């Protein structure tokens, strides 16, 4: 059983200006432990697809099973619980809470999971250690660089040990060197078994994945496996 199974997944927006088919009969399986890059031109439905498999949005057609759960059958609270336990999000704009330090930001998903304070502290510190930011635990987002902020966001996404990490343009706001570091982190996490789906415009970023899915006008036009470049190999090059 694949981690993600979509069958004829569709999303239609009914606007005053007319019908917009953002996603058109998408049927895909994504296996556990895979690293998938989703690419395609602007408006092709990449974010729409991510929002659907991230349980932030509901499809207007088709079926979606996440880790065997039929998502259509869940109510708002059920979706919230699923997002909390099974999915970690990484955003282009980091979306950290500005008033709270790195540790507090990483703790956030565990608050809704109902962990006590002590457990939250421990696990958040552990997650920050995993992204190499243990010593920045008490810095606020404003006191961190863009790359560091994105690491905090990744720690937050990982802290509840989700089965799926979703990243929509995670390197979009970073320079190429920092972007490479973040991609290296993703690859490392992937090697440790985290399933990753990543949206990008950047072909260079897309080359870090094991599988590449290309969207156009809400449909999948290309789906192939590839030999990924290793972010570690690019480090000296980018440093020049």
């Amino acid at each position, binding site marked *: 059983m694949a981690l993600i199974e979509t069958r004829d997944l569709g999303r239609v927006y009914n606007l005053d200006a007319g019908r917009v088919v953002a996603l058109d009969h998408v049927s895909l399986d994504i296996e556990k432990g895979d690293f998938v890059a989703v690419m395609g031109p602007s408006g092709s439905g990449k974010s729409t697809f991510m*929002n659907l498999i*991230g349980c*932030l*949005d509901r499809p207007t057609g088709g079926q979606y099973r996440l880790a065997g759960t039929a998502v259509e059958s869940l109510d*708002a*609270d059920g979706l*919230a*619980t699923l*997002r*909390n*336990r099974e999915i970690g*999000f990484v*955003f282009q704009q980091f*979306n950290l*809470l500005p*008033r*709270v330090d790195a540790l507090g930001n990483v703790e*956030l*998903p565990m*608050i*809704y*999971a109902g962990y006590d*304070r002590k457990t939250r502290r421990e696990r958040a510190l552990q997650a920050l250690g995993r992204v190499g930011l243990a010593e920045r635990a008490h810095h606020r987002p404003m006191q961190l660089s863009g790359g560091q902020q994105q690491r905090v966001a990744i720690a*937050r996404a990982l802290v*509840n040990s989700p089965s799926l990490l979703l990243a929509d343009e995670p390197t979009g706001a970073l320079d190429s060197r920092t972007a490479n570091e973040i991609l290296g982190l993703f690859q490392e996490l992937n090697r440790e078994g985290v399933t990753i789906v990543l949206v990008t415009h950047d072909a260079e970023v897309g080359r870090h994945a094991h599988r590449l899915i290309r969207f156009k006008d809400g449909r999948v036009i290309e789906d192939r496996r590839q030999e990924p470049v290793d972010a570690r190999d690019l480090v000296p090059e980018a440093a020049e």
Partner: protein
Amino acid sequence: MRLIEAIRSALSAITANALRSLLTMLGIVIGVAAVIAMVAIGSGARNLVDQQIRSLGANLAIVTPGNVTQGGARLGAGQASTLTNEDAEAIRHEVDGVVAAAPFVQGYAHVVAGGSNWGTRIYGIDLDWFSAREWDVADGRTFDPEEIRRGDIVVILGQTVARNLFSEEDPIDQIVRVRNVPFRVIGVMAPKGQSAFGQDQDDVIFVPLDAGRRRVIGRNYAKDGSVGSVFVKFANEEDIEPGIESMTELLRQRHRIMGEEDDFSIRNLTEIANTASASANTLSMLLAAVAAVSLLVGGIGIMNIMLVSVTERTREIGLRLAVGARPRDILSQFLIEATTLSTIGGALGVGLGAGAAYLVAQLAGWPSLVSTNAIILAVGFSALVGIFFGFYPAQRAARLDPIEALRRE
């Protein structure tokens, strides 16, 4: 999320915008402060009236000559009083529920002892006075019935007079001269303190009724046995109204009044007290209503700022939803924030109001009364204001669509 943690995070949201939060709270602070201060001052005033009446004596009516309802006609100097001690005697014996009927005359005189001299009020009284006023001697003794009957020239001093004339010396059996009449001091009254109007009630001397009439106060009292007024004390509060009716009947008969205006009037002092405290009540109710309006305005202020806050923090809400917050988690977060805000405002208001009440009480010389009930009520009510006015903004936050919220700048 546990409540304490929710409150802690609400506090951090509130302190993040300290000035704005403070300004938002101001409506609640002022409203609660007004309620607390008004209730405290109102009950202080009411207590004052009660205390004043109590210091006069409970269940008391006063019979005065002349008809007060007739344009407040009062007895002028030299005019004969229509009230006599026989009237008092009759009231004492014939009206049900009467414990004491104390006729008295009063005047003002200089008291001389040795080299000292002191101007004070002088009362001519009989033995009923002590039970009517619930006031007794502290040193020496009261008059004996014979002294009252004969009108002996003996005197009981108030504390203030005793102190001023004799300081440390024992005044008992000393001679004081009033209008050149030598009175022998037989007792000193217990201290009574200030009256509600700041009058020193211990600045007074008492002599037997007849001695007062003949030797000191004079006027026409001596000729016809008339008295200034009569205090009538009843056993129970319920006896007063029927008692006043039968007194009126009795005095009309005795004064042979048929049809024309009464030549006396009777006032129920307990009723006066009740009226006074009722109007104090009305006043504080009115002020409380004004304060409630101010609380309402404060609540609207909170609603306004919470709506702003929800708009400002739309992305935060989107993120919380994305990481697994349920709509009801968001609802309770903002509800708790609004309630924390209003409750802190309420607590500040209690402090401010209690301070103001204390100040007023100090200035007016009243007992300061901020009751625990009023505090609990005020803080509880401000919490309710927060819940009520915070609900709509919180619901708006909880109903946000996570994708749209995350996309919002």
